[in-house]
């Protein structure tokens, strides 16, 4: 169940950009998409949203084919939210308030409800209320991005796709965004599809990870499985291990012990490494 691709291929200007991709995005999961520049991550995400036509394969939601227009082309899937890689591709309104209120107003929500939703999403992302009267295009790069995320999050989509949402965010806003998305996604059993180059944040937040390489889906695994057991796959995709996992491997190497952390999250790895370090008598307080 969930959103499902079966053997989907995409060609743009005669070049095969995605080759024979099959996957299921299960409800309630945080799935991250990684791969080097140009591996096809954004194209894959656009296929999921129904923005890019594919010449082969099929796309279903809960086993039902997705609706098409009268010419048989895919349509943008309304229940899927999409935050673009560049906020400029998305922002259009004259004030931040209007930007955030737009989708709900179009849906016919009452002004009171819209206002409450805007307030909530601003708080969730740690944005100050005085931003609401600003022009989105005049904000700093990071603030623009947060407004773009907020304008999609406010619609509470079934599946939320974010294309590098943390690029350009300072660490406070980055952590706030990821934590809030996780809370929202778990509470409401929503699906998150996160495209990211930050392997550390992928390891910290994901249930599953999809690895793309040159238009192929090289692997789709549980995050723990990928980062702790399948280093070779990452290497094949031209990606380094997240730094905490590199630390784990280093300590294994120099101690000659096999270490099994509770998960691939930095917190769990640090805890384990700290124990090993202390047992060696290497720990000094302060």
């Amino acid at each position, binding site marked *: 169940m969930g959103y499902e691709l079966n053997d989907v291929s995409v060609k743009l200007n005669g070049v095969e950009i995605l080759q024979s991709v099959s996957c299921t995005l299960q409800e309630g999961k945080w799935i991250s998409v990684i791969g080097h*520049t140009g591996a096809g991550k954004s194209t894959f995400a656009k296929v999921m949203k129904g923005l890019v036509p594919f010449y082969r394969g099929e796309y279903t939601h809960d086993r039902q084919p997705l609706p098409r227009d009268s010419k048989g082309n895919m349509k943008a899937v309304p229940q899927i939210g999409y935050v673009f890689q560049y906020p400029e591709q998305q922002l259009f309104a004259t004030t931040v308030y209007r930007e955030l209120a737009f989708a709900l107003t179009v849906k016919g929500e009452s002004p009171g409800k819209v206002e409450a939703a805007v307030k909530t999403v601003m708080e969730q992302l740690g944005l100050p209320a005085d931003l609401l009267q600003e022009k989105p295009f005049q904000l700093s790069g990071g603030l623009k991005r947060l407004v773009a995320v907020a304008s999609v999050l406010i619609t509470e989509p079934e599946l939320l796709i974010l294309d590098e949402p943390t690029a350009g965010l300072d660490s406070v806003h980055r952590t706030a965004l990821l934590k809030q998305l996780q809370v929202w996604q778990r509470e409401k059993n929503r699906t998150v599809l996160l495209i990211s180059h930050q*392997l550390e944040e992928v390891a910290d937040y994901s249930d599953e990870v999809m690895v793309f390489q040159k238009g192929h889906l090289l692997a789709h695994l549980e995050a723990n499985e990928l980062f702790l057991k399948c280093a070779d796959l990452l290497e094949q995709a031209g990606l380094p291990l997240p730094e905490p996992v590199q630390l784990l491997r280093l300590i294994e190497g*120099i101690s000659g012990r096999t270490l099994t952390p509770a998960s691939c999250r930095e917190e769990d790895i640090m805890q384990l490494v700290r124990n090993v370090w202390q047992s060696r008598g290497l720990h000094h307080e302060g």
Partner: protein
Amino acid sequence: MLVFDQVDYYYRSRNPVLRQLSFEIRQGEFLSIIGGNGSGKSTLAKLMNGLLQPREGQVMLDHLNTRTPDDLGKIREQAGLVFQNPDNQFITTSVLDEVIFGLENLRVPRADMAGRANMALQAVHMEDYAEAMPHQLSGGQKQRVAVAAVVAMEPSIIIFDEATSMLDPQGRRDILELMNSLHRQGKTIIQITHHMDEILSSDRVLLLSRGEIAFDGSPSALFSSVSITEHQLSPPFAVRLHQALGLKAPLRADWKETVSALWATS
């Protein structure tokens, strides 16, 4: 030398962005500028190459002043700025033309243009895409082209405004290496970044906060002296590791060597 002398800047007078900023950047320095979202980093970058003029005070590049209209051409030749978001700065229909475009304004002889542009594309590993359309590139590829366009102009100061934000780990390393190699050639490198691991190799860090300079010094001094979390930043992995394990050894970008050495001596 690039000199900021009591610079004030605001977009609207009731919202000051930079206040009474004074500092100097020497030729050949490798400087990182950090600070929270909206703290004024990009504004500072645009003041450096005269895209914006100070409301009060002066920005001087050697004897040139960004407030003197006749100096602006020379200032922009000497100080190149790679913008934060490359998507809205492409104007031509091929990657090569995009890089050549900048050279046309610099009175570079026609015969040299293609050669210089190709060298710059090689430096960012985009030579295979010379004929591609800029708008069809991936985000990370666009960012590389934007870097190449500035590098081709051979300015003596290059300002990178979050030039690595859209890149994969390899791409980030490539751009950092390019910065290092330009620095070794004697260029002044100024990078704006949110990635604290990227600042460890610079000579000097400026931390912007509420329109003022909250810190000016070496990267290791920054992580030991200032509570950077107060300024919406978090320490890089190497520093988190030092804290978690209580390491006393001096902070280095390459934490692996530090850990191995400490283990071996115990």
